[in-house]
């Protein structure tokens, strides 16, 4: 027996824990992982509310979230490798001056 409130509390806890990580960490690899976790918790909200309201529409949107997460990590890692080749470090504050390129 799972009350809907508790699933939503869990999802928001995960979301803000990973949002905190995204804001605090200065390593782009870990920041990408935090974004993945944020998307996962959002998908959990969709699944839980699909159960509350009935039907499968929330699960369909969860699939879309999954596709977006995959596209994000693919492009994000490709950009990360490119930026790393230019600057030689993973700290995003060293990538602020994009206009120099």
């Amino acid at each position: 027996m799972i009350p809907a409130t508790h699933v939503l509390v869990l999802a928001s806890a995960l979301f803000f824990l990973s949002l905190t990580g995204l804001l605090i960490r200065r390593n782009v690899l870990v920041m990408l992982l935090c974004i993945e976790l944020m998307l996962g918790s959002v998908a959990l909200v969709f699944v839980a509310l699909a159960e509350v309201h009935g039907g499968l529409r929330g699960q369909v949107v969860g699939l879309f979230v999954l596709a977006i997460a995959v596209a994000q990590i693919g492009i994000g890692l490709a950009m990360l490798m490119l930026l790393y080749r230019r600057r030689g470090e993973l700290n995003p504050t060293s990538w602020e001056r994009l206009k120099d390129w």
Partner: protein
Amino acid sequence: MDVWNAAILSAIALALTAWAVVLHRRDPKFTLPASLGAIGMSAAAAVVLVGTHAQTATGVLFYGFALGAIASSYLVVTARHPVHGALWLLVAMACLGGIMILLEAPYLATAYVLVFAAAALVFYLSSVTMVELPDKPAPDLWISRYTVTALAGLASFVLVCVFISELPATAEGESLSRSMAIGGATQLDAASAETSAGSTADATASIGHLLLGEYFLPFLAVALLLVTAIVGGVYLAHYEAPADTRYR
């Protein structure tokens, strides 16, 4: 919302805030007691939750998965080495998949675990091997990280309150194990577990019908997004940096 719920929510919010403040205090003399306190607080909240709400195996599983998900995502956020973070992300995604199975979304759970474990993490780990990881401490943020963490903790509490106040009245006390599948009534209790395989197939088929019917335009948009990602990845991989700006 009863008193227990309020106590649990404030305990979770306090634990989150304490966790967040602890994140970058690497001094062990400070980190260890605060981490133990936060973990103990959330464990107490979990014990209360299991005691008051988990009369069935589904409830026990849910709170176990929830504790695992929160603990492993905490370890993702605080991981010193990105590979450790990636492996803890795998654990967190497995816990999320378990919760999704409990919420009668087994297809989505399978997709998440497969995609994250098999595709994204392998890609991620192979990228980690190509970079040289820094070993010096990172510089500060533009505002104090304690401000950031306090804001995040406060925002989580506000969001939880909004969630609770916005929920439909029927959802408050009702259990989620009720059946919701379009393709037929499913009951994921232990008594009718043998019938859940067929209804799972029905639910998956219904997802397919929704994807290719009502949600066809978003489906095409997502397909376009994925093609764009592929083309962009190929373009970025083939891009040659000018020799004077290239690192080493």
